């Protein structure tokens, strides 16, 4: 027994010591800190797969290349994201034909294997239409090309695992489950370089399957499609045995193969084959279930870039109508003999589906979103609410609101505002580059000048947005110098010290001090310059593919120290980190100083610290070598030594780090699977998931004055955390207090009005940040029991406004719209609104009552220093507001008294039965008076009655309150006239009070049936 206690104590002690050593875990305290998405969706993003419900084609699922799974229930008009909490790189989506309303499968990992593709983490299933998902395994599958469900048995599912793109992998081939995904067996595999790229099931005989196998490999500097192991297979026994299909198909090496079965006649098959010989590349048809094949067509549309376009779709009822994904997408109506291009839409088509119920309706997945056609693909319309944009980078400016700048995969370069009237919508974005867009920067002091680039620095532009003048400003190799090597995503940046300076990285660092007009090389070749990694013209395999995407041995990251323009940290895609402290005169290679880092790992990002010249962070991304390990380092000695700040909480590779500018221990990390935050310099990390999907984050930027963290995601557009300041204030000691306020800034009273946005109903509109005063506080645990309320008071404690308070564990925010209480308005028919006035600049208190405890924090409100209104204007506006506020309430009180006496008079009349002259006259006069004070008839729309005094006072009151300058003379004259009417009405009532009301009152005193009304004092009435 004693022994038991000793060991129990030891275990507990170990646990306790561990608990003490563990520092604050950010994830416990994010509370109501929530990300905001601004898209955009106008250029949408790459979609890998589309699937329709078999019996209700209003239900559409799409799998986005980097933006998750979205569902439409109206035939593709509106989509909702249903997969935010999971891997956003999607290979395929499938709907169980046995339970199409509820059961869907998702294979993660896109299979259109371009250089920028993200990876998957297995297969998922939902049985409730996408509300809840379960990971069903295949964790190393990397990319899944197809999921085929037996239409007679939901438990039997076949999966095409393409497998790893960047290295060998044993998890490839056809996998089968017979128990709904609990266990899997590999029923067909070839080798560790050849995966299953397509799998189709005969809809009439589920035991018949066709599987295409593809030998392929990508590295950072080359791509290979094709080999002797690529082949097409058929099984007729549910995957137990497979036969290679060869009769009539090309011999020798093959590349990627597309295969499809005609739904109306399962003996008819089409295959598009990437063959060794040019004349054998193209479309093949079989009319006997794959036993023999005939070559039909080798048109460009069929053979273009098979690694990117290998989907062929056969019409649901006509086996001779087939659609082929491709550069433009094409369709044949004669069984494949001839093809024509589909109508205008974004290029690079990945999937096409026909609607069984409306055979002319098609949905088309492209690099630029989803398109719908109702006429067999002749004309198409884009879906405007899929914010799937794939940013490579983001930068920001200092305007108010600030703008974000960035380039997109196959979708140009853009900038747009971080907020806009009515929300950030499509029309807010401005085009500033062509092709694939990457790094876009505003000129640091003149944001109307924007720098942008296209792939491989084929162009670097300086664009004058105001004058719409465009100049190409890229550096060129000088005579006798080697060719310049630029990365696909070429490094380009501005300087924090010299506004007209630009840096561009090839294998050299180029510097310009005149906005790109003249360039100087300030470094030797900083890369490894490995000739074996510079053979791009041979890249592609069976189909040459020298697009620039595999350019290598280039500079990828340039970080100028925010503390000195002489200090530059340079990272290369082949693993070098080089430092100069003298503006490029001398360079030091630091790449051997990173413990645990495999040689030649791509240096994806360098962050030169604001907290010290000697401090920097380095992020390396090994995924192009099939290494998904996160590598993040910090140096505090100019790179002599580096310390890893990676913990097991980071589950995959990382591309970017952003340090906080105030709290050195606060770090933000952009990973392949989302955003991570550390409160303690990387001792531990937490995934930030509050409205932040598990999407690849390619770049992070922190706004130095707005305190916003801006994430460039590769699949979900720009995502913003509007205010990170509460994160800066989280400390251990807050855990011991019941509620702690974080420091706040002085708040600026917004003085803008807006008519809102212009987006149509189905266009995506990005959220605006809140324009309210935001006061944040910390709760060590969630408030569940007892009352908790919030108020804004003046310094004497008088109530100014009531506010809603957050009750979450961790960070909470009170928002206040700078309003005081609204005046009480007179009762009448319908609504006539008298809004709350804004408060004056000055000091106020936030008061939170939590149970019996009261917590207070002083806050300050100031006027906008850039405002065009003078102090005298404001005083005039405030005085007029005060007068009108009083008039609104005086009228309310007057009408209240009239209503009270009228009600009694009506009651007396009803009870008394016989006419009473005094009472009848009183009723008549009260009614007449009320009729000129408030509207008493009509409705709130076109049946409205003529405005009366209440409506008129409220109208001018609303006008005065809503404008921050002085009221105009004509407004003041209007107020004066209305005031006179009010005074006159009050006089009329006072005459009544001294006359007929007095008489009626004495009648009531004698009456037993109706009591004298208890008229509240004005003060009491206003409090009611």
């Amino acid at each position: 027994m004693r022994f038991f206690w000793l060991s129990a104590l030891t275990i507990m002690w170990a646990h306790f010591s561990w608990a003490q050593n563990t520092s604050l875990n950010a994830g416990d305290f994010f509370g109501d800190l929530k990300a905001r998405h601004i898209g955009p969706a106008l250029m949408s993003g790459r979609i890998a797969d589309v699937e329709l419900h078999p019996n209700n084609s209003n239900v559409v699922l799409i799998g986005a290349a980097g933006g998750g799974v979205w569902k439409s229930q109206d035939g593709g008009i509106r989509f909702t994201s249903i997969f935010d909490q999971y891997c956003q790189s999607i290979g395929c989506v499938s709907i169980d034909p046995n339970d199409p309303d509820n059961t869907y499968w998702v294979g993660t990992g896109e299979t259109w294997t371009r250089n920028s593709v993200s990876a998957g983490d297995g297969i998922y299933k939902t049985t409730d239409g996408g509300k809840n998902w379960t990971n069903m395994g295949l964790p190393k599958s990397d990319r899944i090309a197809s999921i085929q469900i037996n239409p007679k048995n939901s438990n039997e599912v076949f999966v095409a695992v393409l497998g790893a793109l960047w290295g060998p992998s044993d998890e490839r081939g056809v996998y089968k489950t017979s128990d709904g995904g609990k266990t899997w067996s590999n029923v067909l595999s070839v080798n560790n370089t050849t995966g299953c790229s397509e799998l189709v099931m005969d809809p009439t005989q589920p035991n018949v399957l066709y599987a295409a196998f593809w030998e392929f490999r990508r590295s950072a500097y080359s791509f290979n499609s094709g080999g002797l192991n690529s082949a097409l297979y058929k099984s007729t026994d549910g995957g137990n045995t497979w036969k290679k299909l060869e009769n009539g198909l090309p011999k020798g090496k093959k590349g990627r193969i597309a295969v499809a079965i005609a739904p109306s006649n399962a003996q008819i098959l089409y295959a598009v084959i990437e063959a060794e010989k040019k004349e054998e590349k193209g479309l093949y048809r079989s009319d006997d279930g794959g036993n023999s094949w005939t070559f039909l067509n080798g048109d460009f549309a069929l053979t273009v870039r098979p690694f990117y376009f290998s989907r062929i779709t056969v019409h649901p009822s006509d086996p001779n109508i087939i659609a082929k994904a491709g550069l433009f997408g094409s369709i044949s109506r004669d069984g494949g003999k001839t093809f024509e291009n589909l109508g205008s839409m974004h290029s690079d088509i990945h999937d096409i589906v026909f609607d069984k119920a409306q055979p002319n309706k098609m949905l088309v997945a492209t690099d630029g979103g989803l398109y719908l056609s109702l006429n067999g693909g002749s004309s198409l319309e884009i879906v405007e609410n899929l914010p799937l944009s794939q940013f490579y980078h983001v930068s920001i400016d200092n305007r108010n609101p600030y703008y974000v700048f960035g380039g997109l995969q196959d979708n140009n370069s853009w900038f747009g505002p971080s907020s806009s009237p009515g929300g950030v919508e499509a029309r807010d974005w401005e085009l500033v580059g062509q092709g694939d867009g990457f790094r876009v920067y505003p000129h640091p002091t003149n944001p109307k000048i924007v720098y942008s680039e296209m792939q491989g620095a084929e162009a670097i532009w300086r664009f004058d947005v105001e004058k719409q003048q465009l100049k190409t400003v890229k550096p060129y190799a000088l005579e006798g110098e080697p060719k310049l090597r630029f990365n696909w995503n070429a490094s380009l940046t501005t300087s924090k010290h010299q506004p007209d300076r630009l840096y561009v990285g090839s294998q050299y660092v180029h510097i310009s001090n005149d906005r790109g007009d003249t360039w100087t090389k300030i470094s030797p070749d900083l890369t490894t310059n490995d000739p074996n990694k510079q053979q791009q013209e041979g890249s592609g395999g069976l189909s040459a593919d020298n697009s620039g995407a595999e350019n290598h041995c280039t500079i990828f990251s340039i970080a100028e120290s925010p503390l000195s323009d002489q200090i530059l940290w340079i990272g290369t895609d082949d693993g070098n980190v080089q430092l100069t402290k003298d503006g490029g005169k001398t360079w030091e290679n630091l790449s051997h100083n990173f413990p645990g880092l495999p040689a030649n790992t791509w240096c994806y990002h360098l962050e030169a610290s604001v907290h010290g010249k000697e401090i920097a962070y380095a992020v390396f991304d090994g995924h192009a070598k099939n290494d998904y390990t996160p590598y993040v380092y910090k140096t505090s000695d100019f790179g002599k030594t580096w310390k890893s700040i990676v913990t097991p909480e980071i589950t995959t590779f990382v591309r970017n780090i952003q340090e906080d500018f105030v709290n050195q221990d606060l770090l933000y990390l952009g990973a392949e699977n989302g955003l991570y935050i550390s409160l303690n310099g990387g001792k531990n990390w937490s995934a930030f998931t509050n409205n932040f999907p598990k999407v690849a984050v390619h770049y992070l930027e922190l706004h130095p004055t707005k305190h916003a963290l801006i994430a460039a995601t590769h699949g979900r557009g720009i995502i913003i955390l509007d205010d990170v300041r509460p994160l800066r204030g989280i400390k251990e000691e807050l855990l011991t207090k019941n509620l702690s306020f974080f420091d706040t800034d002085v708040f600026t009273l917004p003085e803008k009005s807006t008519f809102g946005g212009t987006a149509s109903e189905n266009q995506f509109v990005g959220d605006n940040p809140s324009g309210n005063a935001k006061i944040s506080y910390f709760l060590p645990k969630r408030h569940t029991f007892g009352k908790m309320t919030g108020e804004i008071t003046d310094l004497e404690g008088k109530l100014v406004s009531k506010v809603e308070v957050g009750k979450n564990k961790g960070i909470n925010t009170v928002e206040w719209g700078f309003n005081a209480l609204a005046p009480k308005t007179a009762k009448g028919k319908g609504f006539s609104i008298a809004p709350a006035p804004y408060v004056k600049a000055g000091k106020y208190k936030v008061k939170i009552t939590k149970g019996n405890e009261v917590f207070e924090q002083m806050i300050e409100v100031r006027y906008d220093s850039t405002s065009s209104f003078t102090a005298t204007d404001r005083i005039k506006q405030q005085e007029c507001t005060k007068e009108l506020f009083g008039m609104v309430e005086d009228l309310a009180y007057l009408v209240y008294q009239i209503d009270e006496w009228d009600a009694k008079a009506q009651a007396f009349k009803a009870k008394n039965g016989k006419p009473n002259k005094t009472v009848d006259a009183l009723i008549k006069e009260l009614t007449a008076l009320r009729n000129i004070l408030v509207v008493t008839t009509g409705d709130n729309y076109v049946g409205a009655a003529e405005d009366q005094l209440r409506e008129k006072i409220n109208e001018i009151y609303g006008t005065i309150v809503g404008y921050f300058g002085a009221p105009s003379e004509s407004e003041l004259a209007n107020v004066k006239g209305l005031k006179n009417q009010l005074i006159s009405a009050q006089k009329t009532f006072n005459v009544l009070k001294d006359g007929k009301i007095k008489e009626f009152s004495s009648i009531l005193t004698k009456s037993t049936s109706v009591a004298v009304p208890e008229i509240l004092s004005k003060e009491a009435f206003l409090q009611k």
Partner: protein
Amino acid sequence: MKHLLSLFGVLLTALTLQAQTVDEIITDYYNAIGGANWDKVSSITMKANVEQGGMKIPVEVVRMRDGRTYTQITVMGNTMTMQAFDGTTSWTTNFMSMEAEKSTSDETENAKRSAGDFPDALLQYKQLGYTPTLMGTETVDGTSCYKIKLEKKTQLVEGKETANIEYLFIDQENKVPLMMEAEIMEGEMKGKIGQTKFSDYQEVEGVYLPFSNVSGIKGEGTQTIQFESIVINATIDETKFNFPKK
């Protein structure tokens, strides 16, 4: 030592938590909010003052054990029924004409079907023939909760019988619901997830009720209603439930 013992307590609790069944969670929840005291409750009258841009809008919500309910608001002295169900008809007020109008047949039928969900469908699931399933644990804004799927009687959506599912998130420590989620089944928001978060549980005559409800669409804006008073078995003007005769 005190630390160690409390730590040991925490470990034991953690072990017990794992073993909980859905029925145990529901029983804990039932006991946490007052248990058998609920048997005496025939109606709940809740009053709040919602501040809309500084304007005070009194709100009164009444729920009866028999399923009748109304929500009234008072704007500028005009009291109107936002939503009501009198046992036969579900109805609202048109804000343009200020006249009562019937809700859709689906809504009335669905109100009838959920009439027995008093005080909370999860507690009565056996009598109502609903099915709760414990789906595991999930964190709600930093607080660890049990996630329970509650499948109710089907509901009518666009005239079709459709599954009616709610997800309840019950605080592991305090045993009370912190959040409810359900898919929006109709309209432009169809497919999005509606959320209501509960807090400020307070005792009223032996039972506990959340005085604060924050509702909205997952990932989007929210609206808070903070009840200032909740009265059990108050005197109720029963005509307020009824669809007005025209």
